[in-house]
């Protein structure tokens, strides 16, 4: 156990050195902050444009909050996918990492933990923009802290698990790794109802999205932080059931992700793709 913690710490330390060293501090901060803030401001602009005319403008806060937490999906999941691309294409060091005693699982987990810290920065900045620029606020005393904390923690596990899956596909399919990284995050943004209720998705797709833990995560975060969700379909689900459902789907998803990653990695090794660069 202590050996595993040591490996995770080493991977996280190395990840931090890489993350904080590729650019000068100014550009680093801009990159970590600029995209989340800009996305938040786009939502703010849309809200400002229609706030006087929209019939359900009060629903905006829930969408904004979910968008803020989507930063974890963006940073962690895409970030872990990018670890593969960077190590293989840019630094050409993936084969050395793969053969080192730390092991890929520990290495990816450690790098993912650094991405979690970056995601936290993005989350806080986005929430600050919402609080001060758009008026997205909540009653601190009314927050259901215990369910909220549990939901938050479970969601982070789901983010890390998704990262493993994306990294595994990136290992197996080098040419589509870059496209995949960006694409999965956008697809989840749409499919999981980050900025709209899933009720607006076509029937059939709604049922599919409920299998993905992130759909429940966003809805639960809204509910426990703001006091209300956004989906009429999920409105009748009790808090306890929501938490249980989220925990179960995340557990299943995590197992599938880890097993899937192992299978993808094994396949990539057999096909000789671990160090296959595409010059992209």
């Amino acid at each position, binding site marked *: 156990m202590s050996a595993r913690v040591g490996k995770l710490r080493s991977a996280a330390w190395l990840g931090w050195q890489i993350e904080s060293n*590729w*650019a*000068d501090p100014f*550009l680093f901060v*801009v*990159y970590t902050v*600029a*995209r989340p*803030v*800009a*996305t938040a*401001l*786009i*939502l703010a*602009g*849309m*809200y*400002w*444009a*229609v706030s006087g*005319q*929209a*019939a*359900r*403008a009060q*629903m*905006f806060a829930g*969408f904004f909050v979910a968008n803020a937490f989507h930063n974890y999906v963006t940073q962690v999941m895409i970030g872990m996918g990018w670890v593969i691309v960077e190590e293989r294409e*840019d630094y050409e060091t993936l084969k050395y990492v793969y053969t080192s005693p730390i092991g890929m699982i520990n290495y990816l987990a450690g790098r993912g933990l650094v991405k979690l810290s970056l995601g936290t920065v993005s989350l806080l900045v986005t929430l600050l923009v919402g609080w001060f620029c758009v008026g997205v606020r909540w009653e601190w005393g009314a927050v259901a802290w215990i369910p909220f904390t549990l939901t938050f923690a479970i969601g982070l596990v789901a983010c890390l698990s998704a990262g493993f899956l994306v990294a595994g596909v990136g290992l197996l399919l080098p*040419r*589509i790794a870059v*496209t*995949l990284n*960006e*694409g999965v995050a*956008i*697809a989840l*943004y*749409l499919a999981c109802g*980050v*900025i*709209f*209720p899933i009720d*607006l998705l076509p029937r059939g797709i709604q049922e599919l999205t409920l299998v993905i833990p992130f759909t429940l995560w966003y809805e639960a975060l809204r509910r426990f932080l703001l006091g209300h969700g*956004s989906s009429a379909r999920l409105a009748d689900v009790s808090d306890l059931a929501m938490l249980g459902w989220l925990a179960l789907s995340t557990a299943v998803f995590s197992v599938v992700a880890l097993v899937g990653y192992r299978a993808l990695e094994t396949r990539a090794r057999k096909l000789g793709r671990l160090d296959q660069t595409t*010059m992209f």
Partner: protein
Amino acid sequence: MKAPSDSHAAGADPFARPHVHPAVAFYRAARARLYVRMVGSFREPTWIIGDSLFPAFGMAAFVLLYRALGAPAAYETLAVLGGILSAYWLNVLWGMGTQLYWEKQQGQLQLYFVAPVSRMAILTGMAVGGVLTTTIRTVVGLIVGFGILGARVPAFDPWMLAFVFVLSMVALYALGMTLSSLFLLFGREAWHLANALAEPVYFMSGLYFPLRTLGGFGLVAACVVPLGFGVDALRQVLLGEAARGLLPLDTEIVILAVLSVGFLILARFSLAQLERISKNEGRLTQRWQ
């Protein structure tokens, strides 16, 4: 004894190239680069999917946000148009801005600089190819926006639409030409800079909401990145009053024309300057500095 031919006469340069009018050379170089851009863009099917589908996904999410808030239907159309144009900005960033940087990474940049053609011709070919390939890929956005999400526009003048679109593209890709030379100065930061210029420009250009919402800031931002005036003018052509335009359409057309000329001149100047700087500092063939 046979006399030597004229071509081997004393003083003739055996390496002399046949004379080609500069305009013809410009056209041929641009066409050649256009060909490479067009063929290359269809070589990787996953990139076609990524370039066409993912902007459409983002657009769909923003349209559904308006729907969830109960906003007037015109806003959904407005977001569809913005989403479609976002594909062009992504192409400007990744297909123009970072292109010379990619070429440097792959060791081909020096070939561009020793080729006996204008660098502007190469960039022009890239730009025209970029517009054409992106236009083909926006079909997916049109299908999602107008087919699946049900956005609608009233009757409009197609010639005016085509004119404003072409003008917007000239201004936008001229900016892309300028960025391509600027990015030559960057090392691996070029990648991150391009990433950092996506969403902030979406916001400053009012891609998913009327630029008028941002007031004076929107006006200033639109003068820096022509995407703002481009999308605003196109919305006015298609939606009229419902577009809630920033300035009158005629004024925006004049500004777009001025920006087009200005960025083309700037692109030519910056390319020459930055080529000189890169050569002096030995950065033309330097990777991952």
